[in-house]
């Protein structure tokens, strides 16, 4: 795993105890990791960095910005490669961080690793994702062109999530009893094969 040289330089600056004390680092890292907020109402990760608190650190603004940016890059790369704490420790050691600082980082990283990976995986190319289904059973009695129809019909609505859109879209279609039987049969086949896969 490689980090660009600018970020690496900023990290080395942060590793140096004379520039950033262990306590300050802890506060900074906590701030950064805490920015990965999960909005429970929306059910999604909504990252937000509270920039007001950054003023409390007594590091020049430019360096502080670069350190923050490089930490975000670092965390993203660690999560992307699914690094465990051993690999993280090795990398941070090479960058010059003290064991104390490394332990603090690992503590936060372990806690947020899954959430960060979840967030990263939300930006992939994908087909519209089915999240819910609504159905309705109607009985057609008559129409203006034909009386005495007397046929049951199903109206199915699939709620679908498209990547990049916040609103759910719908896929609506009708089907007869036989068609629905066919559909359910095929979906059950699919579920069974997923189960079998899980047992391998």
């Amino acid at each position, binding site marked *: 795993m490689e980090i660009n040289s600018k970020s690496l330089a900023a990290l080395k600056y942060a590793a140096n105890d004379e520039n950033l004390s262990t306590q300050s680092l802890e506060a900074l890292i906590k701030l950064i990791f805490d920015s990965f907020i999960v909005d429970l109402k929306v059910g999604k990760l909504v990252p937000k960095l509270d920039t007001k608190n950054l003023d409390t650190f007594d590091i020049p603004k430019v360096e502080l910005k670069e350190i923050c940016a490089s930490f975000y890059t670092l965390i993203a790369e660690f999560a992307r490669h699914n690094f465990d704490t051993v690999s993280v420790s090795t990398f941070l050691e090479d960058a010059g961080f003290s064991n104390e600082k490394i332990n603090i980082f690992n503590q936060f990283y372990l806690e947020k690793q899954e959430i960060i990976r979840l967030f990263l995986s939300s930006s992939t190319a994908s087909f519209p994702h089915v999240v819910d289904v609504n159905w309705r059973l109607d009985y057609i009695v008559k*129409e203006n062109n034909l009386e005495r129809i007397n046929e049951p019909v199903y109206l199915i609505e699939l709620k679908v999530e498209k990547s990049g859109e916040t609103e759910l879209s719908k896929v609506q279609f009708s089907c007869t009893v036989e068609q629905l039987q066919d559909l359910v049969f095929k979906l059950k086949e699919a579920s069974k094969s997923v189960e079998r896969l899980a047992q391998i």
Partner: protein
Amino acid sequence: MVQLHFNDRQKETIIFLNSFDDSIIGEFCRISTESIHKEINSKTLNNAAAKLNIPPMQLKEMLDLIAWIIIEGARLSINEKELQESMIIVGLKNELANVIVASVMNNMHLLQNYMSNMRINTLSYNNLEWRLDVKLATRSVLELLEPEVILKFDFDDGKNKKEVKILQTDVVNLNNLTNNLEEALNEIKSNHCRRVFRNIV
């Protein structure tokens, strides 16, 4: 009790039909059936009217009336007895009514087929193909092990237009989808539905 309801003008035309014998009425029925598919040639109409010694407009009215009876009969899915009665009540002779009833019954199925093509058509399900994938990695995240099901729906527009929609789900949503639709399928066998189907005829 389904009945054909004639308006006053139609009732007059029915009375006029009585002045012809059943073979001629049979001919009328044949021409009317054809007129449903293709408009009658005006020259043929005039020639026929001349042979029968009646004004062409009157012949056209009678043919239109018989065509109307055929179409309405198909729309209402009327049975022989009801149709016969409807026509006799407004004064048509028995033998002539028989001829017309025979013609309506012969054409009913075909006409109902045509009419069912004029129904309101929503997008209807045709077929589903599915595929089970395991997502191993993306550009932003490596080392994944995520199962994913791709669903390819084939839909039919009703106007011979096919639509294909490709969607995906994960395991949880697939199970939810399957369970809900299975529940929907079981509803048809419920007592409530059975009662409704039995009683709306």
